[in-house]
């Protein structure tokens, strides 16, 4: 069995880098839509698939996505988790996160689920189980980022 070797001092350094990510045409159109209170999915006429998050190309047909459609305001949870520890996110834990397939779209997009009482983890997990219907809730002030919206339970 390996044992912990004697430690030596460490040299502590912090590296700070900043990046300017070009949003590009597809994400740019999506974020413009968020500012207008719309969630826009890119579409591929070759495969008839609608993508959220929007993609520039279709994974199935490998053709460029060539259209846009407005996603429904409601959808169904595909996958979910209540994050309790070790989270670098924007919100304090515990927090509910779900990948939701909005009506009229063929893939799932992630965001927080608001209105979930995470004081009881088991109940929180049950309330966001896959198959649960949710609605989109837009922030009052939007800045063209993914955090411009979140999901709410329909019965919240």
């Amino acid at each position: 069995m390996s044992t912990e070797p004697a430690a030596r001092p460490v040299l502590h350094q912090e590296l700070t880098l900043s990046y300017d990510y070009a949003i590009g045409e597809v994400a740019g159109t999506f974020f413009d839509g968020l500012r207008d209170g719309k969630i826009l999915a890119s579409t591929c006429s070759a495969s008839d698939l609608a993508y959220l998050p929007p993609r520039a190309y279709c994974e199935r047909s490998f053709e460029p996505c060539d259209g846009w459609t407005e996603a429904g305001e409601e959808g169904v949870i595909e996958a979910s988790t209540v994050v309790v520890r070790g989270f670098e996110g924007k919100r304090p834990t515990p927090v509910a996160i779900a990948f939701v397939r909005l009506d009229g779209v063929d893939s799932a997009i992630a965001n927080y689920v608001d209105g979930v009482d995470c004081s009881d983890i088991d109940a929180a997990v049950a309330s966001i189980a896959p198959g649960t219907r949710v609605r989109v809730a837009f922030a009052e002030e939007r800045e063209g980022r993914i955090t411009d919206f979140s999901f709410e339970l329909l019965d919240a």
Partner: protein
Amino acid sequence: MPRSRPTVHVLGVALADAAQRRDDVRLEELAYRTARAALDDAGVRRDELDNITLGASDELDGRPISSMLLAAPSGGYLKDEIRVTNSGATALGLAVARHLSGDFGLGLVASWCKPSKTDVPTVMNSRWEPFFHRDLGLDAAVAEGLFAQAVSAAHDLQEDELHQRTHDAMRRARENPRAVERPVASPEEIASSGHVSTPVRSRHVAEQSDGAACLVLASDAWMAGHPEHRAIATIPGVGWSTDSYRLDRERLGATASATAAWAAALRMAGGDAPVDVVELETPTIFHEAALTRVLPIGVARVSPSGGTFAQNPLTAAGLVGVVEAVLQVSGRAGPVQVPDVRRAVAHSSNGFAHQGSVVTVVDAAERLAA
């Protein structure tokens, strides 16, 4: 088993002493000592090598293009060296391809990782694409929670099984002299550990550790020209596959990259020899529970080394599994040796929520003469 196709031979292997935190060595020392130990195990000198293949992560190494510093301590000075910024098992797949190409004879494949040196959740958050996921703060723990939920539903996994599997993996690791020394938690302790990201509890997670792994590989032609050397194992097949980046329920629950990589590796290996041992890279116990259901492992013993519950040096974990497989087929696994192992398979996962897989088939060297 008569062999009509070229293969790749393993002459020697080495693992660094694994520990939760290796503050006694800098990364350069860790890489050098492991590479040198593998060469010594193989009975070859560095100047005999004609190629080096590395698998490492710049973010976790804390230095852009880390290989520029670490190629030399891995034996790469003025050698044909290439690196993948991916799992060490991916580097092994590339190294196998190089040796099968006919252009290379004797090489070393190396991988290392010291996750203790940095803030891993922040590194993992930075690995998400920046527009739709990173800004939410998603990290590896969130991805594992989503994966665990999906495979639990796909395979009707029950908590009792998961707690028992975790306990069993810890117990196997405890027997492995190459593992990080840790206490074995009881199923009850595992069940009462807090959630990280539901349904994953803290004890379901394979703790990270610092480590490194190296193998010395040789081609058929090199072996024919050096009859004084004997292989300790052969690698007749490797396969890899990458699934979609999307994390919807279908993708999460399918573990499709693992089955695709397994099929590719076994097809390349040929024959229908039974698999005696599988070493699985399982960031959480949910991975083990799912993989043992979707992979056709038959009666093979699962991760006798303790797998990632023995040591989990993230980027290098997959190559550690390959070394453990080589030790099994060469009868050198020590207290965790499974009797009469002739074929072992090492599985490695990479990406968020098991997006990618690499599978390596390792045969006992005597299969060549059988």
